[in-house]
């Protein structure tokens, strides 16, 4: 009786020490690792984990760890030194990230289009209008009590685009978001689509998440507006400045950026073709003349009068940067 109590306790301690020791030793032959904070809408399509990471690992042996966060949180992660790079889609936020010295060597890698989706009844009558007119019509119908707008309001890239659209339509997002026809979910794209579907409203969605949910029969929402340069959605990768992050993976990040802008482009182009019958992302290297102009207009930064994806003083490595 006396002994069993003590033995049990000793046993537990031994087991703990043993298991901690095993964990310490059980790491396989330690491959190189790169941590990239990214946006949920990109992550949830499966592109990064199912296509990009395996291909890059096969080529270089480097493991890519993607941490899904909103664009805002992804950048916060980078500032905290938890990421080697960010893969995001909010050029205005990216610009201040770079300007503040956190980001280096930004490369635009892909684009697609946001889409305004809504209930098939379309009470505001926005089908086939241009995006700005559509936003105006929704606000008007909303104030008459006929339509509901659903906003993510989570600082994500999609939300940043939405705010810009309201701005262009002549509304103040901070004011309009408190009106009764304006609902804020504060959550990811998928849940926001489900909510919009349930209440028969409108929302702004990225194409990837929408197609996935639509194909799985989770929502009846229809694409009502998907044309117009205002809806362009530009994805880019930014290396985190090692001086700010205290990490030393910069050369690997540059290698990844180079790969993404060359071989990786075809992987981007093919992703989703089989499953959805259409591409979810378009590689920037294959953009036609007009779309390229839109990318320049909405996704490039001004560098002494020239438009470029990354201003000269923030460049690093032997990458080719797009300029116009």
């Amino acid at each position: 009786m006396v002994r069993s109590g003590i033995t049990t306790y000793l046993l537990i301690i031994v087991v703990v020490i043993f298991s901690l020791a095993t964990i310490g030793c059980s790491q396989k032959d330690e491959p190189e690792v790169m941590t990239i904070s990214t946006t949920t809408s990109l992550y949830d399509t499966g592109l990064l984990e199912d296509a990009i990471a395996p291909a890059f690992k096969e080529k270089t042996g480097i493991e890519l760890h993607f941490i899904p966060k909103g664009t805002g949180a992804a950048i916060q992660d980078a500032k905290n030194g938890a990421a080697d790079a960010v893969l995001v889609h909010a050029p205005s936020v990216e610009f201040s990230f770079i300007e503040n010295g956190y980001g280096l060597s930004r490369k635009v890698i892909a684009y697609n289009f946001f889409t305004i989706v809504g209930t098939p009844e379309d009470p505001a009558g926005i089908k086939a209008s241009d995006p700005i007119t559509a936003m105006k019509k929704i606000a008007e119908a909303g104030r008459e009590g006929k339509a509901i707008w659903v906003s993510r309001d989570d600082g994500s890239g999609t939300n940043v685009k939405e705010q810009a659209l309201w701005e262009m339509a002549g509304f103040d997002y901070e004011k309009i978001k408190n009106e009764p026809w304006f609902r804020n979910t504060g959550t990811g794209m998928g849940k926001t689509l489900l909510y919009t579907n349930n209440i028969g409203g409108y929302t702004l969605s990225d194409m990837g998440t929408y197609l996935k949910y639509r194909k799985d029969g989770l929502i009846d929402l229809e694409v009502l507006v998907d044309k117009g340069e205002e809806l362009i959605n530009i994805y880019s990768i930014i290396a985190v400045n090692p001086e700010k992050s205290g990490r030393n993976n910069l050369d690997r990040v540059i290698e990844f950026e180079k790969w993404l802008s060359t071989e990786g482009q075809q992987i981007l182009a093919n992703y989703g073709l089989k499953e959805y019958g259409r591409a979810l992302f378009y590689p920037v290297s294959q953009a036609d003349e007009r779309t390229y102009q839109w990318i320049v207009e909405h996704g490039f930064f001004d560098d002494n009068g020239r438009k470029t994806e990354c201003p000269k003083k923030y460049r690093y490595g032997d990458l080719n940067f797009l300029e116009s």
Partner: protein
Amino acid sequence: MFEEPINAFHLIFSSQEVYEIALRSIKVSGVATLMALCYGLPLGLIIGFFRFPGRVQLKSFFNAMLGVPTVALGLLLYLMLVPKGPLGSLGLLYTENGISLGQSLLVAPIIVSFIANSIEAVEKDIRELAYTLGASNLQASLSLIREASNGVVLSTIAAFNRAISELGIAIMIGGNIFVRDGAYNTRVLTTAMQMYVSRGETDIALALGLILIGIVFTISSISNYIHGKLAGD
């Protein structure tokens, strides 16, 4: 309506990844529970046995910690473990060991409270009985521990079940990392479930949820069985 989950089950049991994720869940939360036992058990015994100033406050502190929200604890730990944070140099962010550490902090109060309470509940009767039978002080205490072993087993199961079912710490400290054949994966059942839900693949999420429930039930049953055997001896 159940056709989809059944299909998902076929899909899932033919997938190597799911085994890996389920095993990681058990391992990470098992280590967390053992770590918690390591410091929770002595603490619980001390609070249960001894009367010292501040004991009541200490006990209410652990009782209050029973209900700590996992997201709050997860966020706090994230801020501590982030490379620029005070404990960043440990390199525990986005690792299995990081999750274990966080979960052990989460479940330790369960162990402390359960054990302290179960000792208190039997203390007076047993001690008196032991003295009557001529036991020394030490012997009386040890027979108390034996009587309280119910509490130890129950608290261990409860702690493990809470650890393996929580999401907040696993997602914030673990990051749901998964690379095929990767060496540093941190995806566990709960984070995988939340990912599949947000991907809209609810059938797979549901199947993973059933696996999780299965693990919890199995572990509870096995422990109960073993404990029953031991108590029967």
